[in-house]
């Protein structure tokens, strides 16, 4: 059941994917541009963190962009997403404006969570983006519950649940995998296996490091995917989501990837060898896809340069917009602990 399914013929298509992608008609070119947006955004976050504009924990997805882009491009607007604390890329690929994400990290009124969440807790109800969860494994039951409601109502939509390799060591993963399979729930389990649970390497945290195999033991279709290849991710997601959407029950994709930067800005990254990092950087999803598109003639240097300029301008505008917004008022500190009277039915 695991790692055996060949990729289907379908390729990355972004159907009615959220707005934000504008790179002509070639879906893979759009995927490349989207990965570039996320990469430059994350690099900007590093600068803003160094300048003390962003504080708290900051977890970057540099190196893992192919998963965000490949996955989000294959979901519909009606589907739901539950993510982790390393979710900037997921949020942006889902369609959250950069200025809103930055404003959240700046503690502004215009932040998606009005400054109460920060980097780890990005939410957008309209995009059906349910966080931004910072308890490893804690988002999984919520994702299964979102899917349960869809199933009970007969709604033809799915919930994509993103988590890391570390979550497979949590009891919640196993409770939810069992229940989702038992109840045939429309959940797409997206495991971003970046080889480390914070500083603990996969082989030091799991007796069996074949994560897809372990998921398959819960009677769900599961296989491993090259998470450094947006095309491969998209093909797998399309195939898996078709299965999930058509009543085939949950599906599990182990997306093998690597984060090029430390776990968080607090992490001195003493537990990994430099050669290992360099080896993975050779598989950087952005140059890999860029080279492929260039060699096939689908992309030229001028286009890439144009995109770089557009993205730089988008980020500069987003930073300025977020900076200019009003800080969330301290007088509103105690709001949103309970729903306000206008929310009461």
């Amino acid at each position, binding site marked *: 059941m695991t790692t055996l399914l060949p990729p289907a013929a379908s390729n990355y298509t972004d159907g009615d994917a959220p707005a934000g992608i504008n790179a002509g008609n070639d879906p893979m070119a759009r995927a490349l541009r989207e990965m570039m947006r996320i990469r430059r955004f994350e690099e900007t976050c590093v600068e803003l963190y160094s300048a003390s504009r962003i504080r708290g924990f900051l977890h970057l997805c540099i190196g893992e962009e192919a998963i965000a882009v490949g996955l989000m491009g294959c979901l519909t607007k009606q589907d739901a997403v539950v993510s982790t604390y390393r979710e900037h890329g997921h949020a942006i690929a889902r369609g959250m404006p950069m200025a809103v994400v930055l404003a959240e990290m700046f503690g502004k009124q215009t932040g998606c*969570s009005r400054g109460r969440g920060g980097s780890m807790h990005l939410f957008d109800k309209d995009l059906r983006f349910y966080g931004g969860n910072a308890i490893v494994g804690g988002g999984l039951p919520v994702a299964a519950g979102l899917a349960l409601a869809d199933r009970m109502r007969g709604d033809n939509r799915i919930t994509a649940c993103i988590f890391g390799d570390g979550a497979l060591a949590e009891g919640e993963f196993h409770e*939810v995998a069992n229940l989702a399979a038992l109840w045939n729930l429309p959940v797409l389990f997206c495991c971003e296996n970046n080889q480390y649970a914070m500083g603990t390497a996969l082989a030091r945290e799991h007796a069996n490091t074949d994560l897809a195999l372990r998921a398959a033991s819960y009677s769900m279709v599961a296989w491993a995917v090259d998470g450094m290849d947006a095309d491969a991710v998209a093909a797998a997601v399309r195939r898996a989501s078709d299965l999930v959407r058509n009543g085939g029950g949950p599906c599990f994709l182990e997306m093998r990837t690597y984060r090029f930067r430390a776990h968080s800005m607090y992490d001195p990254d003493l537990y990994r060898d430099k050669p290992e990092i360099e080896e993975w950087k050779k598989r950087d999803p952005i140059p890999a896809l860029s080279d492929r598109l260039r060699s096939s003639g689908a992309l030229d240097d001028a286009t890439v340069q144009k995109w770089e300029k557009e993205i730089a301008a988008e980020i500069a505008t987003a930073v300025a917009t977020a900076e200019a917004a009003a800080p969330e008022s301290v007088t509103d500190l105690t709001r949103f602990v309970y729903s306000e009277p206008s929310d009461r039915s």
Partner: protein
Amino acid sequence: MTRTAHRATAATTPRAAATTSPATPPPPDRAPAAQTSYREALREGIREAMLRDDRVFLMGEDVGRYGGSFGVSKGLLDQFGPDRIRDTPLSESAFVGMGIGAALNGLRPIVEVMTVNFSLLALDQIMNNAATLLHMSGGQLNVPMVIRMTTGAGRQLAAQHSHSLEGWYAHIPGLRILTPATIDDARGMLWPALQDPDPVLIFEHGSLYNLTGAATADHPQVDIDKAAVRRPGHDVTLVTYGGTLGVTLAAAEQLAAQNVDAEVIDLRVLRPLDDETVVGSVTQTHRLVVVDEGWRSGSLSAEVAARVAEQAFYELDAPIERVCSAEVPMPYARHLEQAALPAPADIVAAAHRTVS
């Protein structure tokens, strides 16, 4: 002072009081209905909610075929089917969290957790998600769900099935905590709880399920913001909730025989606390005894005592007294368990200390 308005629809009397004192007569405009039990009242509350709102469903361990581990949901599977009366595996964190997800996605789940001790396996979901999502998302995501669970001792179930941890939950902003202590409250709290846009935890004391009495005929809805005065009195205020309402009412009857007229307040809602009713009563009686089956240290009784000290210090004619469980994990043997729990004699003694 609004306590008169909330004065006991105590047509039913819990636990010890049922055998030692007559039930408070119902108001004349409400005819007493047939005898029922706390368990049946809970069941009728669930049935009524499911009939009124098809978004409501019940989920938990053995709620379906078994009929509920305490028999609360017996018969509901036949009426509503396995989709809405949903048996779960022993996966507390998963099914409580799934209730959260289902609530976010438009349903109105009632999640039953077998006991409060087991709820600790789902504490991550209750605390880090249910209570937190609204704030953490800047007001975007409210979680309209109800979690019911059994609490409390008295049945010789020892230290992993007998604790009263509702005071812990009352510590958490974002939750509403209800403790029905009467048959009317058992039935009448669920519907308003389901109308709350935020998560509500309902704690059912295990010793109350077999409590029998008459339900008020038109099944009044409970105001889930307010405490109830279960017995009016002038000399001392006895504040309690849930499983200890019965022993507190019994103590009040003993005190009456000794010419001490005690007022008994059933908090009913542990969060948000109804300070107005408690402080209003203390302003009349000038004496306070708090009875709480939880442990004394860092307890709900401490919170009530602190609030009265903060808000009505100069009304007090005596130090505040507390009657709580012994600070031990609950033992099995009956004589040990009974010794650990608040008893009428302890409450009577505490009340006498305040009036002497």
